[in-house]
Structure formats: C-alpha cells, structure tokens
C-alpha cells in the first residue's frame, strides 16, 4: 500500500499549462469519483489552486498507480501527454507526505508562509470526504497536514511579517498607534499604491479618510470611494494637525512637507505621533523631518526594505519548519507501518499469550498439590488451546494483507481487539 502524489505547480509549469490541468469546484466531485474508480487506486483527493494541481491517491503498486493517475489527468482534461507530462512531479510514501506537509505549511507557496493554502488543503480534504474518496489513509494524511500547518504558524514565524508595501504600512501604523479605530488618514495626491495603502488602512479600522488633491474633483471622487471627505489642497497642512497618518504621493517636483512647516504642525499636535508614508518619486517629504521628535517618516525604499527583511525572516524560519515536518513525517510513517499485517499478528499473539499465562498462574495457585509433570501438561493444554483459537484469525489477517484494500480490514481487526501497535520490533511467536 503506497501514498502517491502526482501534480504540478508554479515552479514546474507556466500558467498556460497549470490552467489546463485545474479542477474547477464544479468538476471536483466527478473527478474524484473517476479517479477512485480507476483500476488499482483506492483513495483519492485533489488539491487544485491557482498555483498548483495535485492528485493524492493510495495504491498497492506505486509504478502502476502513478501511471494510472497520469492517464486520468490526460483523459479527464483531454490533453496529450507531451503537453503536460514534462511538468509533473511524482512523490511516493514519505516523500508524498513530506510534500503535502510543506504545502500546508506554506513552504512550497509563491509567497512563503502564506496562510490561504491551509484553507485550500482543508477544502480539498472536505471535498474528498464528501465524495467518499478519502478514507483511512488520506484522511489521516490530510488531517496531519492541517495539524502541521497550524504548528508551523504557531511555533515559528513563517507566517509573520507583511510582504507588500501597503500591508507593511499598516503593520507600522499598528506598531505606532496600536488599534487604528481612533485615528484618521490623510491622502495627498492620488496614486495607485497610495489608494491601495489607504484601502488596507480602512480595512484595518481607521476612523476617517481625508483626501487632498490639486484637482478637487479627483479628491472628491477618491474620498467617496472610502466614505471620506475631500479637503482643498491648500488646507492640507491644517488638516495634518488632526490626522495621525499621512500618505503622500503627489506628482510635485519638490518637497511639499518640510521641517519648518512641520514644526508648527507638531506644536499644534502637542507631540502626538505623526506617521508619514511618502510613496512619491520624487519624494514629497523632506527627509530632514526624520530627526523631529514624534515624527515617523517612511519612504518607498524604507517600506521595501522592511518587506525584504520580512522575506528573509520567513526564509530563515523555513529551517525550523522543515524540522517540524520531518518529525511529523516520522510519526506518519510509524502509523503507516502499523497498518501492515506483521505488527498486528505479533500484537495479537502477545495479547493471547499474556491472557493465557495470567489465567494459568491464577488457577495453578489454587492447585498447589499438582506435580511438575501435571503442571507441564496443563501448560501444554492451554498453549494448544490458544493456538487453535488464533489459527483462523491469523490466516485471515495474512490473507487481508494481500488484498487491494486489505489495510482497511487490518485496521478493523486492530480496532476489534483494541491492539496497541507501538512496539514494532516484535517477531511472530511460533505455535
């Protein structure tokens, strides 16, 4: 019994190939049913996002299973092998688990550590469960991948730190002001990035948005978009007295905010912190204002430097994430080994032998007058009895191990007898 992964992603295939192998939600159920009905495949799950399409399946024969899965992709999407086969990657057993765990942790994502993928893995599992194609093994594999994904985000910093200029601006604003509900933002000029940053701030809960633009009509239009208020451009210095966050992206060829002007504004602000985000090129804000107390100025280079440091931090966290993944892969491997017949047989024999000896001792204590010969006779009787009881179940267990979905029956036997299979080192006892 093997876990197989077959798929492609943003690293191995361009978008024009990925889009042809995508599985829209409406086709997922049909795809899963078609996949699991293929000869040799017992379980199936499909993970399909804008950056990857992957099939997870369980088969008794790895090589034939992978061929069958590839044939399914070709037939389902009506493609020719040469169009997509060179972009495919294939993983088996521990590597398949390792790959899914990396995906769930965001370690394989375009934006390392992104959290959206965890929800997508969860959706893939739900779809497979609802279709009845995820059973014992894939259920366990995907559940563990969700657990690893959560662990990675809790125990490491792989998901921390904004990775876009606009979200970094919000993170800085939060670091200065804490909650943003009682703060307002002033937009000077109208540029795409400043609008995006303002949108992020609005989404984070800023109280009010003011817009000042040399073209007042444009300011009105932009203010309406954020539910804010347009301000005449000449009056923006006065507005800065009450506004804590200023995003500047005018097309002015010179500085529009200078230290001498800002000193008066800060006196009126009585030292309340002022956060200036200067996205304009050439810059709108004189860098000399950095030296002023309670003024925090970030230009586009500063924001991108923060983004770069966050990216580097996430890359460093990958080492910890990989360690975590290896722990979980080992744990899964132990679980998979327990599905084989041999540990089950050993555990069953040990249980029976334990019961036999316990009962034998208990009854022999009540018969102290027995001779050594008589004791040996009774012992042989009980041993023979135990072996005869176990004979047929053990034959059946060995038979299950050879059947296509025998691991399900083996798991049922383990549950019926409530056997603990942690000790994998035991040998089968001879009758």
């Amino acid at each position: 019994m093997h876990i197989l992964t077959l798929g492609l992603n943003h690293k191995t295939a361009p978008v024009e190939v990925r889009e042809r192998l995508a599985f829209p939600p409406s086709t997922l159920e049909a795809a899963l049913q078609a996949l699991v009905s293929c000869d040799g495949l017992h379980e199936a799950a499909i993970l399909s996002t804008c950056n990857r399409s992957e099939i997870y399946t369980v088969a008794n024969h790895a090589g034939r299973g992978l061929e069958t899965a590839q044939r399914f992709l070709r037939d389902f999407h009506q493609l020719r092998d040469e169009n997509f086969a060179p972009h495919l990657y294939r993983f088996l057993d521990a590597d398949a688990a390792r790959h899914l765990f990396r995906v769930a942790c965001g370690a394989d994502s375009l934006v390392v550590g992104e959290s959206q993928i965890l929800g997508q893995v969860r959706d893939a599992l739900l779809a497979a469960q609802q279709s009845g194609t995820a059973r014992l093994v894939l259920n366990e594999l995907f559940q563990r991948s969700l657990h690893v994904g959560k662990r990675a985000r809790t125990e490491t910093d792989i998901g921390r730190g904004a990775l876009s200029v606009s979200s970094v601006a919000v993170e800085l604003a939060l670091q200065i002001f804490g909650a943003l509900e009682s703060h307002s933002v002033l937009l000077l000029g109208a540029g795409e990035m400043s609008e995006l940053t303002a949108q992020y701030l609005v989404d984070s809960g800023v109280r009010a948005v003011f817009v000042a633009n040399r073209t007042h009509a444009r300011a009105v239009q932009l203010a309406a978009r954020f539910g804010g208020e347009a301000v005449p451009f000449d009056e923006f210095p006065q507005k800065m007295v009450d506004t804590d966050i200023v995003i500047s992206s005018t097309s002015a060829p010179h500085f529009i905010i200078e230290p001498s002007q800002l000193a008066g504004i800060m006196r009126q602000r009585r030292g309340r912190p002022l956060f200036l985000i200067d996205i304009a090129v050439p810059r709108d804000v004189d860098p000399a204002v950095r030296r002023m107390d309670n003024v925090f100025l970030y230009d586009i280079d500063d924001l991108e430097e923060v983004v770069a440091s966050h990216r580097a931090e996430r890359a460093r966290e990958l080492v910890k994430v990989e360690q975590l993944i290896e722990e979980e892969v080992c744990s899964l491997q132990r679980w998979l080994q327990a599905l084989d017949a041999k540990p089950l047989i050993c555990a069953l024999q040990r249980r029976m032998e334990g019961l036999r000896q316990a009962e034998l001792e208990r009854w022999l204590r009540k018969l102290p007058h027995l001779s050594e010969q008589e004791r040996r006779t009774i012992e042989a009787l009980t041993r023979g009895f135990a072996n005869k009881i176990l004979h047929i179940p053990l034959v059946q267990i060995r038979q299950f191990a050879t059947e296509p979905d025998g691991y399900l029956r083996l798991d049922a036997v383990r549950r019926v007898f409530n056997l603990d299979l942690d000790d994998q080192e035991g040998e089968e006892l001879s009758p």
Partner: protein
Amino acid sequence: MTARCLFSIGLSLALYLVATVLYQGHLFLRRREWGEWGRKMLLAGACVHTFTLGIHFIVSKSPYFSNSLFVVSLFVVTFLFAGLWLEHFLQTPKVGAILAPLAFLTVLYAALRHVPLEGTGAELLKDGWLVVHIVLSLLGDVGFALAFGMAVIYLLQEHWLKSRRLSRFLPPLDVADHAGYLLIAVSFSLFSLGLAMGVIAQWVGSSVSLGRADLKVLASIPCWGLYALYLYLRAGAGWRGHRLNWLSIVGFALVLFNLLVLRHEIME
C-alpha cells in the same frame, strides 16, 4: 512569625515558581495556553500572598511591619497587581514573564534571610500615621517604577521605528505611552496622599520629629513637582510623546535617589 504564615508564603512561592515556568514556556515554546495559565497562577499567588499579610496583621496584633519579610511582601504584591493590570492593558504576557521570576526570587530571598525590624526603625513603624505615610508613598513609588519601565519601552520602540525596524517584542508606541500616563496618574495620587499623611503625622505630633531641613522631605518636593508637571502637560495641555517620557524617567531617577540614598534626620 507563625508557621502558618510561613506555610502560606511558601504556597505563594510555589505559585510564583509555576507561573515563572508557564510564562517562559509561553515565550520560548510558543504555547499560548501556558501564558494564560501563567497569568492565573501569578494572580493566585499574589492573592494568597496578600491574604497572608492581612491575616498576619489581624491575628498577630504585632506592629505593622515587624519583619523585613512583610515589607518585601508588600512591595512584591503591589508590583504584581500593578504588573498584571499592565499586562492586561498591553495585551502581552511579557510583563508577567519578567515579574514572576522576580517575585519568586525576591520573596524567596526575603523568606530565607528575614530579620525582625528592631531599633528606631521598628519604633517608628508602630506609629499609625507614619505607617500610612510610608505605605502610600511606597505604593506610589511602585507605580512610578512601572511608569519608568513604560517610558523606557516607549523610547526603545521609538528608536526602533526611527531606525525603520519593526519590533514585535515591544508594545505599540501609543499604548506604552498611555499605560505610562495611567500609572503616573494613579501613583501621583497615592504619592501625594502619602506625603500629606507625613505632614499630618508631623502636625499631630507623632513619635517622630524631623529636622527643619530634612533632605528627604525637601527632595520629595521636586519629585512631586516633576510628576505634577508631567500630568499638567499631559492631561491639562494635551502634550505627549518623546519629551514627556523623558520627564517620567527623570522623575523616577529622583524618586529612586530619594528612596535609596537620602535618610530622614530624626530628632531625639
């Protein structure tokens, strides 16, 4: 000191130790629930400790501060309650992570090395007015100490932000500033009441008579004045930020100097 008192303090120590372990586990092993349990253990320890102090004074009928352990205990529980409030305000378990081991080590040391307070100091501590003066002033000092911590954090955070770096370890700038202000506001009231009690104690003729130019008394005037100025600028004139936090730091430096270096000149 009774065996029951020592047992109770031992229980508080155990709770502080458990809180220490839980807080460090939260910080280094990233177990979120450990931080919450750490807070509960620390609060439970502080409550047991406070209960012990109260029961001791009621039952023993001994002079208010007959033993160094109880003086230290008063300091510690005040720090803990104020610190737990601060932790809740800042929404971070890092305050408790610092206070829990400090509380454990301080009380452990005081419990192992406790001495009865004798001599003139002990005599002074039998005077009710003086005791109220001392307790209120010390409570105020505890608050100023925490406000000093907040001011340092503000300046560190400001430095990081000016250096264009993000520190996730420190609380937001405005939050640290506001916490410092609240601490000073409460502590100033306690400190002022404490000073007033001292004046009243002299006026009603306590067992203690101070010289006209008692340095400790004189030094408390600029302490009080600095914090009064802080509150006027902050609450009255609406100022905040970099300079006010430096004012808080200077104010606490004066408080510390007054507390640790200067002594009352007690007339015979």
